[in-house]
């Protein structure tokens, strides 16, 4: 299992929220593996626990949330229960993250360059400020920020959403992280900017040789960027497979539904068939349905689905699926 090419291995992670109204299993026993240089995708609807998975890796779960079990092995070191100081030395350095909202993820009262330089200075105690500034400007160039010297001094509100996300990427990669977690990095952006940012991330990934966990609800992004995909639903992984395998042979009804709900660029087809949507809503995490948690929305649901929670079953070639239809 622990071959050198594995950068992150999550085993049976459980992140629970202990609220007044009950325990919410936001991340419910999931296992994920990321190899060096790989881009993996985690897909699902909002509230399925994909963001909580990323915050768990970063050890940034705030109370009442808590990691209730499992391990997160980053370069063979378990991050669960690691000392705060050790975790801090990893964050922003070897392990970094880009957030969904570039608009609000930058501190409004400091110039952006300073905010990027801060990461550098935090992890390189002996670096001079001038040197850090130089490096930030270089990084700004690398992420395609025009006029990087001038942009170093501007405040976040003076930048467009696309440029702010580039700043966030610069901040995440300035220390040449081994693993970058991108949590819906382009959701808040225009489609054209989205494409630019994704291309940039892919290029940087090759250049810096970092691994990426791409968290998204957009299967188009997954198809474009990822090598391997996990489909999450209500805190659990429903299906995982190589990206080609998943798109060509989706096995789980949920994955099938997700793939069917992608609007096609063929207008004629869209008009004729109408847009497909998965009926119903994400279940209340305080009161999960018995049996398979997807069954109330599943078009194939049968009596057995209401009774037993199926296991994640290997159906060959690294393709795993959690559905009663598939057995070992």
């Amino acid at each position: 299992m622990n071959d050198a090419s594995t950068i992150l291995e999550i085993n049976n992670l459980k992140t629970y929220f202990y609220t007044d109204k009950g325990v919410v299993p936001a991340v419910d026993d999931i296992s994920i593996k990321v190899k060096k240089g790989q881009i993996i995708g985690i897909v699902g609807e909002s509230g399925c626990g994909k963001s909580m998975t990323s915050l768990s890796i970063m050890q940034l779960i705030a109370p009442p949330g808590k990691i209730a079990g499992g391990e997160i092995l980053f370069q063979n070191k378990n991050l669960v229960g690691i000392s705060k100081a050790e975790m801090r030395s990893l964050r922003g350095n070897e392990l970094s993250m880009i957030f969904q909202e570039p608009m609000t993820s930058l501190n409004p009262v400091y110039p952006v360059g300073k905010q990027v330089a801060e990461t550098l200075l935090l992890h390189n105690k002996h670096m001079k400020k001038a040197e850090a500034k130089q490096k930030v400007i270089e990084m700004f160039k690398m992420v395609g920020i025009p006029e990087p010297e001038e942009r170093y001094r501007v405040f976040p509100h003076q930048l467009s959403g696309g440029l702010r996300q580039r700043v966030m990427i610069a901040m995440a990669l300035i220390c040449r992280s081994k693993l970058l977690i991108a949590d819906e990095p382009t959701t808040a952006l225009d489609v054209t900017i989205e494409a630019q940012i994704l291309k940039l991330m892919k290029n940087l990934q090759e250049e810096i040789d970092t691994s990426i966990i791409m968290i998204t609800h957009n299967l188009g992004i997954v198809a474009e960027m990822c090598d391997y995909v996990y489909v999450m639903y209500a805190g659990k992984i429903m299906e995982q497979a190589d990206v080609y395998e998943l798109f060509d042979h989706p096995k789980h009804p949920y994955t099938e539904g997700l793939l069917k709900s992608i609007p096609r660029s063929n207008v004629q087809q869209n008009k004729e068939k109408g847009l497909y949507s998965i009926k119903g809503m994400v279940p209340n995490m305080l009161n999960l349905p018995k049996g398979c948690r997807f069954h109330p929305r599943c078009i194939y649901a049968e009596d057995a689905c209401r009774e037993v929670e199926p296991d994640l079953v290997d159906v060959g070639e690294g393709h795993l699926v959690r559905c009663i239809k598939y057995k070992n």
Partner: protein
Amino acid sequence: MGHYIIRRLVISIPVTFGIALITFILLNVIPGDPVALMMKDHISADVVARVRAQMQLDDPAYIRFFRFIWNALHGDFGVSYKLNRSVSSLLMDAFPNTLILAISGALVSWIIGIPAGVLSAVKKRSFLDNSIMGFSLLGVSIPVFWAGLLFQYIFAFWLGILPVSGFDGPEYLIMPAIVLGWSSAGTISRLTRSSLLEVMRNDYIRTARAKGNLELKVVINHALKNAMLPVVTVMALQVAGLLSGAVITETVFGIPGIGRIAVNAIQNRDMPLLQGAVMFTTVLVILGNLVADVLYSLLDPRIKYD
């Protein structure tokens, strides 16, 4: 930046004018003759008429108002009925005392209030937080005059370590400043706490943590500056509150400041003096608001000056 200050100053002019108008109306619609009131009952009608004429009280109200404005612009607020001295010289004598008191009161409130609020927010829902918030509420709820008397009883009478009242040296300032600052400290610590907690929920705080910052640095470097923005706004409102408090504090501790002038003017029905004191304090409040606005724009880069 300079433009911004000038523009803010220009906006303050009509506000000041309006305040002068409100003050004038409030003080000049008294039913009954101010002169008769001033001189009590045993004065002949003849004398009253002569004094009225001397004070030009028989002119129509609007003429008196513009005369008041005109004279005020020249720093002339008339002559005190009771003390027979120019109101402006009385105010200028008293002003430094009020200023010293208000500034030390403000300092006390910040020095206690801001760290207490930060501590409270960082240790949210702990015993410490609950105690600090309990004390803050106590500070807000305590009647200032009563706190003053309590302090006098404990520190001047019982322990005998501080002078009861008067204003002859720094030791005379200690009790009034604490009494005055105490209630503002409650407001400031509560606001700092809630503002900081609000800011800590922001995405950029998560970013700061994701960089590998120490939690303490996240609070001090990333959250505090943002959290202080609403606190600065309240500091502006605090000027008015401090001056209100100064009225009471000066009365309790016998400090010859503007507040005590106002109280005495009311007791002696000394209208010009009261009018001058009110106008003077209100202009101070407006200036305080201006300073706070400028401070705010210095802290928040999103505010544009042009």
